[in-house]
């Protein structure tokens, strides 16, 4: 009986299992192969805060979703076409999100009485018919299958059992016609020296593939053709790696060595891990005793002439607040990265949120303005990090980069740039006195208002910085009221002048219409997809995405005037919304969903339609 191929534009699949089932790894392998095949893709890892919640519990379910397409896509999708559920808890947590008629691939070996009870099932959903009407159910005895496949190998049953994620991966590779060789090569590298493990996983992978081929459960296979991406060399890229690479590129182009001081925190730690590997680039990493020491060391390194960076998440920014003010008043170039997560307090450490915008803009004592930039996609983290460094160095100021958990862990195909094509970063240390027989550390550049950067070791330019108000030009301690007012204004004006360095906004769609969707940060993809859909339906809707939130681009006000309505979708209760309303006196409305996950494009579409019909 012949199997048929069906060509589809896109598919969304989700792997879900226990924290220990290797779902992130499985999703990662599917993603790499999908990238190599040439689809456009977007991923959404979703894992619990606990390293190992009790096995089989709802709290311990870890999932990885990928959307891949032959078209240009912007989001990882909301509802999967295929769900792989490795145990009852994974099914329980995720079944309600599968599209009606979607495919459910289930590891029936994990559907024991104990696990079913733990997940809150009164009867076995595979047997009681409760799923049959809604989904195509494919029960597979994965543990038995891998046990058979690994027969003869010198491995404990426990280790053999662990290969079942590769069996599931093999099935999906079969369904979507993907090659196995990249994964096999990866296994060889990853488990070098552990031949039995390599062999077991390779056998499990192939067994899964062959299972798909030989059983009649999969009569239709799907083809997703290559996406028509701009020409170039690509690799798959996640946000935290892109951020790290952007910093390194800025280090090269500025000629400054990179200093990173920080404290481990989810979901920012990967930046520390990545930079720590790059010692042969001269990167110095310092794992500090706490968040405050992290940024304090960065301030010391900036004073001493490094490209100085720290990364953390919201709780860490809270701790760094006082030191950030010190960075503002001493006017040193620092890049401070906040990979936002759910808050307040410890909040949802592994989930995404955009709720630290107010903290970035206002979270310091005194008038302490600092520039705020946010990347739009995982790959864009590279350019945003690079830009943050460039502006910090050019304007001698701390810059806040607002990434988020979704961007940090999500991935997409990324066209590899040429480092030499990036915008120049021109750094000039002060070498000589800038006034008659004197060095004035706060004598400003006329255009940018930045002050000179004289680093320790430079003869004749000895000076003292500090957190007490500075006298204009000389930088001496000053309590003079007029001087203080002037310095407060100058620090604000300096940040405002960054507007001159920001390119005009790009309006996606017409420059006037019924609705402007205005976004920042990680909601870019959902907003762009939604506006594309609405345009296809003939709606007069456009999209503007903000890269800089402080300062806001010069042309935003004029753009807003062209639209009857403005919608600001955010994963917070309306932080950019309030800023836009107060800044432009526009009756913008918000779409605010704070669930620790991305906003779906369809939700935006519905909201826009409710307003404009």
């Amino acid at each position: 009986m012949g199997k048929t191929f069906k060509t589809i534009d896109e598919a969304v699949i989700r792997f879900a299992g226990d924290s220990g089932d290797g779902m992130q790894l499985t999703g990662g392998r599917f993603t790499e192969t999908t990238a190599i095949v040439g689809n456009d893709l977007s991923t959404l890892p979703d894992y619990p805060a606990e390293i190992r919640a009790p096995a089989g519990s709802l709290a311990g379910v870890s999932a990885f979703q990928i959307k891949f397409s032959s078209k240009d896509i912007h989001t990882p999708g909301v509802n999967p076409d295929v769900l792989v559920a490795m145990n009852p808890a994974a099914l329980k947590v995720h079944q309600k999100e599968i599209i009606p008629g979607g495919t459910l691939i289930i590891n029936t070996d994990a559907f024991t009485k104990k696990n079913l009870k733990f997940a809150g099932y009164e009867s076995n959903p595979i047997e009681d018919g409760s799923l049959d009407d809604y989904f195509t159910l494919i029960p597979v005895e994965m543990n038995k299958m891998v046990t058979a496949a690994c027969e003869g190998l010198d491995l404990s049953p426990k280790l053999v059992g662990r290969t079942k994620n590769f069996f599931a991966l093999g099935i999906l590779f079969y369904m979507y016609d993907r090659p196995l060789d990249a994964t096999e090569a990866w296994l060889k590298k990853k488990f070098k020296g552990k031949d039995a493990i390599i062999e077991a996983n390779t056998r499990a992978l192939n067994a899964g593939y062959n299972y798909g081929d030989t059983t009649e459960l999969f009569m239709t296979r799907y083809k997703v053709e290559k996406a028509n991406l701009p020409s170039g060399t690509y690799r798959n890229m996640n946000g935290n790696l892109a951020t790290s690479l952007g910093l390194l590129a800025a280090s090269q182009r500025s000629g400054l060595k990179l200093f990173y001081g920080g404290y481990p925190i989810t979901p920012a730690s990967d930046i520390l891990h990545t930079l720590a590997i790059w010692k042969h680039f001269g990167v110095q990493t310092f794992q500090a005793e706490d968040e405050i020491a992290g940024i304090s060391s960065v301030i010391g390194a900036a004073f001493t002439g490094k490209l100085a960076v720290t990364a953390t998440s919201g709780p860490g920014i809270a701790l760094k607040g006082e030191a950030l003010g010190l960075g503002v008043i001493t006017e040193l170039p620092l890049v401070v990265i906040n990979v936002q997560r759910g808050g307040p307090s410890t909040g949802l450490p592994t989930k995404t949120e955009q709720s630290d915008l107010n903290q970035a803009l206002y979270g310091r004592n005194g008038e302490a303005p600092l520039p705020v930039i946010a990347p739009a996609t995982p790959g864009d983290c590279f350019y945003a990090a690079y830009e943050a460094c460039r502006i910090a160095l050019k304007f001698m100021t701390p810059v806040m980069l607002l990434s988020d958990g979704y961007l940090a862990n999500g991935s997409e195909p990324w066209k590899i740039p040429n480092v030499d094509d990036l915008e120049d970063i021109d750094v000039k240390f002060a070498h000589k006195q800038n006034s008659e027989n004197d060095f004035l550390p706060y004598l400003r550049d006329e255009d940018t208002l930045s002050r000179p950067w004289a680093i320790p070791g430079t003869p004749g330019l000895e000076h003292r910085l500090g957190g007490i108000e500075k006298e204009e030009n000389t930088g001496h301690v000053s309590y003079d009221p007029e001087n203080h007012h002037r310095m407060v204004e100058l620090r604000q004006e300096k940040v405002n002048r960054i507007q001159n360095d920001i390119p005009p906004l790009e309006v996606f769609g017409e420059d006037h219409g019924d609705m402007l969707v205005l976004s920042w940060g990680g909601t870019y993809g959902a907003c762009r997809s939604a506006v594309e859909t609405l345009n296809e339906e003939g709606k007069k809707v456009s999209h503007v995405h903000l890269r800089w939130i402080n300062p806001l681009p010069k042309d935003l006000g004029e753009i807003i005037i062209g639209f009857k309505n403005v919608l600001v979708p955010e994963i917070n209760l309306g932080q950019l919304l309030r800023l836009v309303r107060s800044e432009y006196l526009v009756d913008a409305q918000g779409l605010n969903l704070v669930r620790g996950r991305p906003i779906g494009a369809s939700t935006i579409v519905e909201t826009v339609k409710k307003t404009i019909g």
Partner: protein
Amino acid sequence: MTDVQAPLLTKKDFESDQAVRWCPGCGDYAILAQAQKKMPTFGRKREEFVFVSGIGCSSRFPYYMNTYGFHSIHGRAPAVATGVKIANPDLSVWVVTGDGDGLSIGGNHFMHVLRRNMDVNILMFNNRIYGLTKGQYSPTSEQGKKTKASPYGSIDYPLNPPSLALGAQATFVARTIDRWQKHMAEMLERSYNHDGGSFIEIYQNCNIFNDGAFEEYTGAEKFSNVIELKHGEPMVFAQGTKGIKLDGFKPKVVDMEKNSIDDILIHDETDLDLAHIIANWTSHPTLPEPIGVIYCIDKTTYNQEIVNQIELAIKTKGPGNVQDLLNSGDTWVVD
């Protein structure tokens, strides 16, 4: 001769043009004067000195030194100094802090900068009081101290800075006193010459809020109440009339007329066990207050290890190329 002529600098070269604004009679003046006098004798260029401080009276210090300086925020000077030293290990980095700044709000950084053996010189002005906030008890104030914040007497127990430093794995721990100028000069030089994190506790009189706190170590009876530690020498004090003997682990004061010098404890600044015993004498009711180098050993510094790791990585992997790194991983070409 190919020697580079060491710059001939004087105390004047290290005085900034800023008016010193401590209270008249403050012990800080003596420390500043000694630092300004000592720094030019080290044969190092002025621009290679960096003084970093936190918040408090003592932390105004960098403004008065005509070197690079950083008056940072409360308690964080060791962390700022860490960034300076890692960024440029060739600099001579000094941290100026106080008992509140260094041990209370900045206690965590104090502990870790010493644990890492970061090559910075920490001068902790201990006046056992909060001066800048006008007289609250500090983590080194004696229990029962009456201050505005403790009108019925403080119920906090004080901590012992040298013991804390030793517990944090410091490689250089010393103590001196503001009025002991020559001794202080010696300690500054020892600290400068120590390749590693060094900690000097300086007893400093706050004549406004805690006047006379160290009177017994600086007044007429000072030689009877203070013992100067000297490496390899027997521990005698009170002009040689008294000495220290160990009874098991317990030190006791003995009369030298009745004891042979051979029975007196010999100071060994490389002996950690002995250092812990000496550190415990702090404010002891029957023992003299120890000053001098309590402990000093050689151990590779954190800043050196960073350099070593980077050099090794470059040697084994070759210098990194950013473009190659970008092009690495699984890549594919779209025509």
